[in-house]
């Protein structure tokens, strides 16, 4: 397929690997931030291709994994109080101190998987009078979508749409790593 085969051209990849290995005059350690990158690296064996000169460290870059326990506890408490809780599918198995959202759903709570914060706004419009809470996690790329959906809810004058925000930013974490004495 166009632009898939071209980007998976073994000859081109081989030549680029040769170039990297020739030009790296010392050993390099590189950490990738995003889990999607980790997936690509391992799926295509890039770590093995480069291991002679380059060590690829897999960073902690997953907003789902770094969501604080307290945020999950708040979400669980909201479900128990009768809110409709919406989030991305991966959030449902993240444990709080008293279980996860899947468990809350099994006990009769209304927990909905959405693909987009806009879907949560649509749900709020369909269910007036019932609080609909979007549990919002994500980095800089995701936060604007949540902000845009919130503005949409505001423009539609929906009074039952709420956001439990737990966004995180990448640069402060990188600054902290770079400022550590051993780095």
């Amino acid at each position, binding site marked *: 397929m166009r*632009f898939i085969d*071209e*980007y998976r051209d073994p000859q*081109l990849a081989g*030549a*680029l690997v*040769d*170039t990297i290995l*020739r*030009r790296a005059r010392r050993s390099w350690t590189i950490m990738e931030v*995003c*889990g*999607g990158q980790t997936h690509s690296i391992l799926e295509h064996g890039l770590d093995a291709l480069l291991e002679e000169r380059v060590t690829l460290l897999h960073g902690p*870059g*997953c*907003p*789902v994994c770094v969501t604080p326990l307290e945020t999950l506890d708040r979400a669980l408490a909201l479900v128990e109080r009768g809110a409709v809780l919406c989030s*991305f*599918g*991966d*959030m449902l198995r993240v444990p709080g101190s008293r279980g996860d959202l899947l468990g809350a759903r099994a006990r009769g709570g209304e927990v909905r998987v959405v*693909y*987009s*914060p*806009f*879907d949560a706004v649509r749900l709020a*419009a369909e269910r007036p009078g019932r609080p609909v809470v979007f549990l919002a*996690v*994500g*980095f800089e*790329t*995701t936060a*604007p*979508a*949540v902000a*845009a*959906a919130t503005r*949409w809810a505001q*423009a*539609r004058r929906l009074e039952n749409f709420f956001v439990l925000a737990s966004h995180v930013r990448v640069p402060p974490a990188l600054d902290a790593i770079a400022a550590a004495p051993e780095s």
Partner: protein
Amino acid sequence: MCLAVPGRVCELYEEAGLRVAAVEFAGVRRRVCIETLPNVASGSWVLVHAGVALQELDPRAAEESLRLLAEAARRGGGS
């Protein structure tokens, strides 16, 4: 949740004041906010994350990236 997925714009419309497109991803249609891309048209390919079209996929940009990769490979170890 971090993934951005490419899809093809099938239809443009307005939903309660929001510019929205029906975007097809490998046979599945979803509603996507296209407020970010004022010039997107039916038939465009877009990269979608969390229900928002982040950018239009431009065949020329993809060709340019390939050209740069090939050039980097060709130049090899020279500096």
